[in-house]
Structure formats: structure tokens, C-alpha cells
């Protein structure tokens, strides 16, 4: 029998609100009957107002499949309709509707192997974090490199956790800050470019799987750079974040 899991709406209750940055929260959700997910997948979230008005958005699952409690990370979009509500208003006990998990194209499991190159623009780090958390939960030491771009260190998601996860067990993490760097910073600055990718990525002939996530212009630029650098286009998985409201 075909599972209807991905297309039916389920009620999710907020169990915990985690402050990630001044403008981002992770919502940890209890979802009875949740069928499980793969790292990289996302969910559709639907909110209903008292008069019946509904709004819907998509968010990547940031938690590992091994962790009980589904987590999504929401970054406030200026003048957004849904994100300010999810970041500034939502409290434990609140309810929303969830549909998913969605997406097989942008997923990674430990058994898929590596090496892995993960490139994140802003909140595009969320699904890649699910992959890294899954990797850690499985005790994998597959060669993995993360290049994450953020405007400032204050906006950098999961920074403390990433500092605990690497560099060790085959994981290397590199940040680049595009607007403002922390005092004493000697790492990358400015946008992701060919030079930064060459410094971080495994060589093309190592056949890495590349996962790129972030705003559409970021993803398209990085994907082009990777192809230009000789990476197999079929090994580049891209997820473009953009307005998903309907």
C-alpha cells in the first residue's frame, strides 16, 4: 500500500524554541505519526489564522533523522509574512500543520558515501546541518568539507555546534563573512568564489558529492563555479531558497 505520508497535513506542536541568532530560531516539533526523514529533506508548514486565512511556506529539516523531535530553522525575512511570526511570536505549545518529508533529490545518507562538499549561503545551511548531524550520529568519518557563508558572525547559524564537530573525524568547516568579520578573524572574507572553493573542496577527481543550498543567485553562482572547476555536474545537488508563499 502506498504511504500517503508526504501529502497529508499533520498537526505539529512546538516543543521548544531554540534561539540560534538574533534573527533566527529553531523550532523543535512533536509530530505524532512522523514517518521519519532523510537529511536534506524539507517540510511544508501551514499556518491558519482565526478567520481561516492560511499561509504556507517550506522549511528544511535541520535535525538528524536519528534525533527524536523534528527541528526546522527559520530565518526572519524582512517584511515577511510568516517568518516574523515563527521567529518572534511562536511559543512552546503552539500548533501548526506540517506536510512531508519532501524531496529525494537533495538528500544524503552515510551509506551514500563521500567525499562530501557542502556549500551554504545564509540559512541554506539548515539542510546541510541535518546531513552533518546525521553523519555525527552515525559516527561517520567520511571526508566532509563545509564552506558556509554568512553576513556577520552574529548571523552564523550553528557556529558553536560546528566548532565542536570539526575539525576532526574527517570534517573541516570554513566560514566566510560577507559584511563584517569578527575581531581577530583570519579566515575567509567576502562572497564564495572560485578561490575559496578550490581551497576547501576535494579535487574533482576524488568524485565528491556537492550539496549547495541558499538563495537562488548564490546557488547558481556556486554551481557554475564548481562545474567550471571540473566537478561533475551530475554530482552537484542544488536547493534554491526563495519565496515559497502561496
Amino acid at each position, binding site marked *: 500500500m*502506498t504511504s500517503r505520508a508526504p501529502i497529508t497535513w499533520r498537526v505539529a506542536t512546538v516543543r521548544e524554541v531554540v534561539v540560534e541568532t538574533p534573527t533566527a530560531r529553531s523550532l523543535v516539533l512533536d509530530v505524532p505519526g512522523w514517518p521519519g526523514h532523510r537529511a536534506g529533506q524539507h517540510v511544508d508548514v501551514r499556518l491558519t489564522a482565526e478567520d481561516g486565512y492560511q499561509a504556507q511556506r517550506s522549511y528544511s529539516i535541520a535535525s538528524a533523522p536519528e534525533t527524536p523531535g523534528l527541528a526546522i530553522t527559520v530565518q526572519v525575512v524582512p517584511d515577511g509574512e510568516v517568518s516574523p511570526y515563527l521567529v518572534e511570536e511562536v511559543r512552546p505549545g503552539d500548533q501548526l500543520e506540517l506536510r512531508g518529508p*519532501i*524531496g*529525494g*533529490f*537533495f538528500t544524503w545518507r552515510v551509506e551514500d558515501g563521500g567525499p562530501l562538499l557542502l556549500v551554504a549561503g545564509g540559512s541554506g545551511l539548515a539542510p546541510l546541518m541535518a546531513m552533518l548531524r546525521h553523519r555525527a550520529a552515525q559516527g561517520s568519518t567520511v571526508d566532509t568539507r563545509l564552506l558556509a557563508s554568512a553576513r556577520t558572525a552574529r548571523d552564523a547559524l550553528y557556529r558553536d555546534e560546528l566548532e565542536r564537530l570539526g575539525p576532526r573525524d574527517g570534517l573541516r568547516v570554513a566560514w566566510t563573512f560577507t559584511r563584517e568579520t569578527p575581531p581577530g578573524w583570519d579566515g575567509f572574507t567576502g562572497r564564495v568564489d572560485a578561490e575559496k572553493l578550490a581551497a576547501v573542496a576535494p579535487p574533482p577527481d576524488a568524485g565528491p558529492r556537492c550539496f549547495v543550498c541558499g538563495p537562488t543567485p548564490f546557488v547558481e553562482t556556486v554551481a557554475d563555479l564548481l562545474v567550471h572547476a571540473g566537478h561533475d555536474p551530475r554530482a552537484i545537488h*542544488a536547493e534554491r531558497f526563495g*519565496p515559497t508563499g*502561496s
Partner: protein
Amino acid sequence: MSDDQPLDGNGVAGLLREVLAGDPTTTRRRCPDCGDEQPLGAHRAYRGAGIVLRCPSCEAVAAVIAEQASELVVHLRGALLVARA
């Protein structure tokens, strides 16, 4: 199945379910315009009155989805290659 007594859609429902229940993001599509095969997850999605999916290689329309109140109306062009479970 013999030709003079064809089955109907109900008779091949199991097969139709397999077609429709494929993971949409990994299902590949062969574009009739440019011949390229790309996963639906890699197709560009544009939101207008409805959703338009376009071939990432040649921009030709691959699918149009109208989200009506009580049903989705889905138009597909090209061949879908649905991986069997």
C-alpha cells in the same frame, strides 16, 4: 491482456499508482525539445498564476500545475522516468 477486451485504468491501477507515487524530485524527465534527461528536482520552478516547471537545459515548459480549490490540474510534457521501488 487481449486486444479485443482491453482493461481499463482500474485494471492497471497498481501500475498507475507506481507511476504517480514516484518521488517527484528524483524522477527524471526526458525533454522532447532538447533531448536532455534531468531530475524533476533540478527543473526550474516559476510561480505565476500556477506553477510552471521548465527544463533546466532548454527552458521549455515541462509541467504546469494549477492549484485549484479542490483539485490540482497537472499538465505534463515529455517522458517521465520513474524509478521502481
